[in-house]
């Protein structure tokens, strides 16, 4: 298991070895923010660029 902390909420993210590749986008299980896998060994994550959905209430 590879793990790293979510840059947004510091939640622990665990990924089974070999189940992910660099550049892949995953969701943080705690805060749901989209993260980009910037390296595999060691596992590093960055906030994926994504546009903020406008609710327009």
């Amino acid at each position, binding site marked *: 298991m590879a793990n790293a902390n979510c840059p*947004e*909420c*510091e*939640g622990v993210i665990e990924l089974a070895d070999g189940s992910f590749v660099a550049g892949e986008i995953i969701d943080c299980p*705690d*805060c*749901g*923010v*989209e993260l980009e896998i910037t390296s595999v060994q060691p596992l590093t994550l960055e906030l994926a660029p*994504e546009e*903020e*959905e406008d609710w327009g209430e």
Partner: protein
Amino acid sequence: MTIKVAILGASGYAGGEVLRLLLDHPEVEVSQVTSERNAGRYVYSLHPNLRKRTNLQFVPSAALEPCDVLFSALPHGEAMERIERLSELAPKLIDLSADFRLHSSDDYVKWYDRPHANPSWLERFVYGLPEINREAIRGADFVSGVGCNATVTNLALWPLFRADLADRSHGVIVEVKAGSSEGGAQATPSSHHPDRSHAVRSFAPVGHRHTAEVLQALGAAQDPLAVHMSVTSIELVRGVLATAHVFVKPELLEQGFALKDLWKAYRGAYGEEPFIRLVREQKGVYRFPEPKILAGSNYADVGFDYDPATGRVVAIAALDNLMKGAAGTAVQCMNLMCGFEETTGLTFSGLHPA
């Protein structure tokens, strides 16, 4: 070997909800349920959702026989009058009313405008909110219920005070939005459908009694905290949402307090809690806690937001006032008191859409 459990005052919403949960609880046999007015009638005549689930009939409280656990869901003021007699009926007692929630009889007089009938019993009761009082409840024989508006407020704020992040001198302002089932099963002019529908009604701008339990949970003798609660009735039957406004300690602001610190405080307080879910998401419709998807479940959803420009933390919590705010928490306490797995009989996840 199941335990025998009786419910005193089971004609109301809270008592009916305890009954619904216990009927599906693998360790429990519901021995008796009482209602003076409805003695002899089938319970499902008042609780139609329980049709075909039980043929239990209400009995008068005088007919109550000894049992292993007694839930009391009588109107406020009844249990404290009858506590001596009730305590002889069962070794473990859980009272959902407000009679034994406050530790100090002075507080009771102040908030409930009458002297407590049995003040010596106050210290024998443990406040029944497992998330902040689990070990005391585990070993207790007498446990009080919790107020729904107090609980949603306490669960929203607890991590901030546990981690000592809040500027106590600033006090707390909390706005509670509440559903109609908080008013109970008794019809009143204000619950008349044409007047209650689509209400956005300032029910209690000040002086709501549940404030006492928030002061008790978050207050500290040596460092008083001002809690300012306002309750607004909204278009909802089950469910309550609290939006609490707190300010971060100045010294922490200087050290660069940020959202991550809130995650740390909330995860630290609730990471292992079976019934608390942290909800703060970037996408989707339900990004912050919301009551309607919690109806019938024992979950409390807790979230937060932060305004770095002013240091204001907005702590948000939602729950079902009849479940996590009353009956669900009471059954959770029973599980702890009897050594059952804490989530037994409380795994319904709520509905979506609802």
